[in-house]
């Protein structure tokens, strides 16, 4: 019921199918447990990731490039009872929409943000993004990328995000982290490391990945999270920790405004206020 009849236009075998399958299973599970389809809203940016909007029959907006987070925030403010998921690519999140990423982490609105990071602008045929490794070549960078990539996990920790996670593009890992993110009261940042079969294929990621949880990482310890976040710099692949780096409690955006608290208490949005 949550799937649409749209035929997928992702490349055969694309890792986006893993993310889609996980999200659908997660939503269907939530609905089986009593949530309604109308309780959810999704927002997507522009790029390969955004096609997920077409394959999931939930309300929301397939928005502009880079503007997923302010749109998510606007939905939460419009109706704080909505469960909101934003989806972005790495171009969307780390290039075009960087200012929103930092500020939304700071606001700590209760929503979940999933970044499909394939380290490349895939839908525009393979240009480098802020998380592409040095030396990567495409038609627009014949001399290769010269600039050091950004470490989004460390950025999110520094910006004050209250839930910071990274998973590999694998159904089980994603479904697990989505459940944890939804349980978290605050801004949940989830990065999905996702090879692009055409423009940025798997550089042996799968062999380098390990689970933070299995290694006994304390997700409530900021210093430990910071250290673990430094293990993968998006440039040289040695080891890639996955799982929840950090989780903490902080005041939630929607709870700071009497007007929104009142809407939450009544289970309504502004739409239902008649003046």
């Amino acid at each position, binding site marked *: 019921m949550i799937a*649409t009849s749209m035929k997928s236009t992702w490349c055969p075998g694309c890792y986006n199918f893993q993310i889609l399958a996980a999200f659908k299973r997660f939503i269907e599970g939530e609905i089986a447990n009593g949530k309604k389809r*109308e309780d959810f809203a999704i927002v997507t940016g522009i790029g390969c990731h955004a096609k997920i*909007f077409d394959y999931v029959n939930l309300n929301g907006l397939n928005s502009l490039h880079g503007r997923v987070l302010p749109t998510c925030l606007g939905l939460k403010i419009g109706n704080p009872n909505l469960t909101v998921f934003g989806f972005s690519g790495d171009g969307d999140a780390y290039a075009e929409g960087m200012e929103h990423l930092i500020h939304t982490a700071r606001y700590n609105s209760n929503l979940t943000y999933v970044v499909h990071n394939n380290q490349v602008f895939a839908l525009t045929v393979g240009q480098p993004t802020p998380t592409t490794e040095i030396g990567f070549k495409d038609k627009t960078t014949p001399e290769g990328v010269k600039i050091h990539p950004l470490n989004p996990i460390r950025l999110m920790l520094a910006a004050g995000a209250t839930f910071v996670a990274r998973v590999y593009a694998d159904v089980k890992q994603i479904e697990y982290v989505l459940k944890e993110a939804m349980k978290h009261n605050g801004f949940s940042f989830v990065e999905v490391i996702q090879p692009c079969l055409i423009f940025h294929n798997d550089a042996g990621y799968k062999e380098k990945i390990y689970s933070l949880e299995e290694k006994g990482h304390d997700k409530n310890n900021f210093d430990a999270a910071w250290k673990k976040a430094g293990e993968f710099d998006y440039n040289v692949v040695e080891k890639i920790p996955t799982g929840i780096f950090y989780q903490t409690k902080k005041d939630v955006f929607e709870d700071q405004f009497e007007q929104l608290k009142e809407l939450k208490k009544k289970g309504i949005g*502004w739409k239902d206020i008649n003046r």
Partner: protein
Amino acid sequence: MRWSILFGGKAGEGPNVLAHIVAEALVEEGYYVFYSRDYESLIRGGHNFNLLTFSDEKIYSNDSKADILVCLDDATEEIHKNQLKKDSFILKGKKGNMYFAGRIFKLLCLDFKILEKRLKKLEKRFEENMKDAKDGYDEEQKNLCRIIYKKNNLYFTNGSLSFSDGAIKSGLDIYYAYPMTPATPVLTALAQKQIENNFLVLELENEIAVINAAIGSAITGAKSMVGTSGGGFDLMTEALSLTGIAEVPLVIYLAQRPGPGTGVATYTGQGDLNIARHAGHGEFQRVVLAPGNPKECEELASHAFYFSQKFKIPVIVISDKHLAESLYTLTEKSKLIKSAKSTKLERYNSYEKDETGAATENPEIIKRNVERRIKKAAEIEKEAEKFEMYKTYGKKNSNNVIISWGSTNGAILDSTKDLNVKFIQILYIEPFSKSIKKELDGKNIILIENNATGLLANLIAEKTGIFIEDKNKILRYDGRPFLADELKKEIEKRLK
């Protein structure tokens, strides 16, 4: 009678507070007052002044000369010496602003009790202010003009306050903004009133976040509004285009200041007519409304919500610094129109979408979508004709027709009282009334605008085929508003 007082001094010495207190007292006594603010982009020092004009008849603008010059610092007298008349009265001396309030109250025979009441309302430094005011009142020996109490039902307001009230009365749920002069007074006014009226005001990281968040809220069904000036509006442009394709109701308050670039941040101009009309890629419908005084600000705020909700389109209300920050004395109550909330959360898309809300590249669906959106133009036009799309003043059958829009309204009304002219003030920029062509055909048309190239003239040419001669364009583009006495001379040169 028409009297002018110029209050000058450094930022921080309080010429604005002083002007406001005198103005409110005059309004309380039944006089019509208009004052404008001239301030530089700095917080302390420099030179700021307020030009206050009052009369026993309706007035909406200032003149170039001052009957009384109040100098809060030494520089003021020198800076404004050209604005003095032969018999102008100069108040000076190293004293606090309320000392001069006391002297002016004596000069104008205003009741000291009113001043005391105002100072109480001000709260800050009450004792010191009272002492200064008493000293000034006692020291002043002259009476310049005997104020006689008149019974008028007057209210005193500026464009920002009235626009804010209009938005609240139209059911505003959420206002998003990033501070930018001269749109900030609306942000301030709404922020102060949000709890009492149960709506929400939020400042986000930049104008791009502001408009995208407003779109997010608008698609949940909330009546959403954003406010900014030219530079911020430019940043919002991509999302403005998004409201066009996704058919999202949104009200945008655009308070102009001179551009391009940072331009002159704290001064006035009307250079943004074209961005209001054309900003945003692709073809989509919008409504652009241009109030000319605070009453129209309040009324057109309600029209903006009405059209945005009814047609699920962006509506831009275009104001400027002069209208946003000058204080007007008004008598008539505003007439607002009600609007129902029309939107609910569904599947919205920035891409062309099919009936399931998914992105599509199907040519038939694209064509159908485009035609559905474009068809709104005729419906909007038909709906707009139910309202006053422009106003006419003056001699209805005159061969001389002045045409203008926005805040030039005040100086035009004041300067044409005894001239043989008809004045047409355009309220609806988009859609543009078809009747205007008939009003202009064969007339001696005089254009008055606060910009350098006559943007309204281009709009008129586009919509009516009528070209206004360059020699008949009265344009001011130094960041300052028109002054009634100077404008009158310019108009007289062009009458036939």
